[in-house]
């Protein structure tokens, strides 16, 4: 098929405004979802890591929600919340929740008890102990969770096509319906991968900046 190349720079140039708009949609909904999810999952993780009887049911419920397929979840949410951005946003929050929750509890579980003891001996109250000792120790694990949630979310947004809000997924679908226009599908797929890579890199750098003590130790 000579008229249907896999790559076409002129397609990218000619459709730059539409591609950019979809990219902004894609990044916006991902970042917002992961931010909401982090704001819920980290405090919840702190809470359930303190009481053993709560952690089982909460993690179990999050795991059940995580098992529901994205297309199914969007299909359940769309008739109730309306077509568009909202069901995609809520779906992404739900999926990110388990990942971040798991990493928060895992991070808090590995805090060195000797360090906690030392802080307590220095007269740290429970609030300061949490904010200045436990959470910083768990930070690398939490950041790892946020990164994983972000990368997975970027790929998941494309499924939002089904409810009319798929970011670059909209472009993929358009290319599919547009007589299988390869350059369009390929551009959107590569764009999605690039978004994931860039956001992952940003979070990696943020994580590094937030944990300077880890660098000093390894240097």
């Amino acid at each position, binding site marked *: 098929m000579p008229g*249907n190349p896999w790559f076409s720079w002129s397609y990218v140039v000619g459709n730059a405004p539409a591609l950019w708009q979809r990219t902004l949609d894609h990044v916006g909904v991902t970042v917002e979802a992961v931010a909401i999810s982090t704001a819920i999952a980290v405090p919840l993780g702190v809470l359930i890591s303190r009481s053993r009887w709560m952690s089982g049911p909460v993690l179990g419920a999050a795991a*059940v929600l995580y*098992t*529901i*397929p*994205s*297309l*199914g*979840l*969007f*299909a*359940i*949410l*769309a*008739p*109730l*919340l*309306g*077509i568009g951005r909202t069901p995609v946003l809520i779906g992404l929050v739900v999926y990110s929740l388990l990942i971040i929750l798991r990493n928060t509890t895992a991070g808090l579980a590995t805090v060195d008890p000797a360090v906690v003891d030392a802080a307590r001996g220095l007269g740290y109250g429970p609030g300061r102990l949490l904010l200045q000792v436990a959470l910083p120790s768990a930070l690398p694990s939490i950041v790892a969770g946020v990164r*994983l949630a972000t*990368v*997975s979310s*970027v*790929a998941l947004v*494309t*499924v939002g*096509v*089904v*409810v009319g809000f*798929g970011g*670059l*997924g909209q472009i*993929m*679908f358009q*290319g*599919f319906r547009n007589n*299988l*226009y*390869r350059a369009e*599908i*390929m551009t*959107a*797929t590569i764009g*999605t*991968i690039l978004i*994931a*890579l860039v956001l*992952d890199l940003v979070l990696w750098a943020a994580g590094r900046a937030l944990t300077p003590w880890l660098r000093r130790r390894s240097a």
Partner: protein
Amino acid sequence: MTAGDGVLSQALVWLNDPLTWTEQGGILELTGEHLLMTAAAVGAAAAVAIPVGAWLGHTDRGAGLVVWLTNASRALPTLGIVFLLASAGLFGNTATVIAAAFFAAPVLLVNTYEGVRGADPDARDAARGMGMSDGRILLQVELPLAVTLVSAGLRTTIVQVVATIPLAALAGGGGLGKIITFGLGTQRYGEVLAGGVIVALLCLAIDGALAVGQRIATPAPLRVRSG
């Protein structure tokens, strides 16, 4: 359109009609198609990933490759891959089965790799001391010890594939996703809701059944923690 009640009763009415289930292209037929596609994808992924993972684990090579594969497979948008395969001439079901297998393989590979590599070195030494060949060590010592991780990987994989197959409907294929795309196309949101619930329940039911299977597949001495 946010009238949840109307949609809910539409969904119930639709689900209550026996014809919905038994007609040609009904829920039962679509579920069968869905499960067949799942079996094809998981079978293909397992046929490649388990031997490769076992061999890499046995020779303790390729750790970097395994890590890279898992990370890279997360960033790839499944939908894009399905559409790209479709534009290469492989439509709907075939494209989705290939894409699902492609995403399932890394999970199986990693779990087999870790399981075989993590086999007790003493057991491996003892087997070698008894004069077992490399192949026999792998088949009779390392793989049985890896069965916990491999079966956990299979469970994750199967559930993940059941959840991926609905995307076929977006590329003109079959499976349960068809109920959702058809409902959206015809603005029958009750059917969309019902389709979503059916897909979700199928996934949860399969996960539950596999949890039991995983427990049975794990040899009694290895059942330390029930998952």
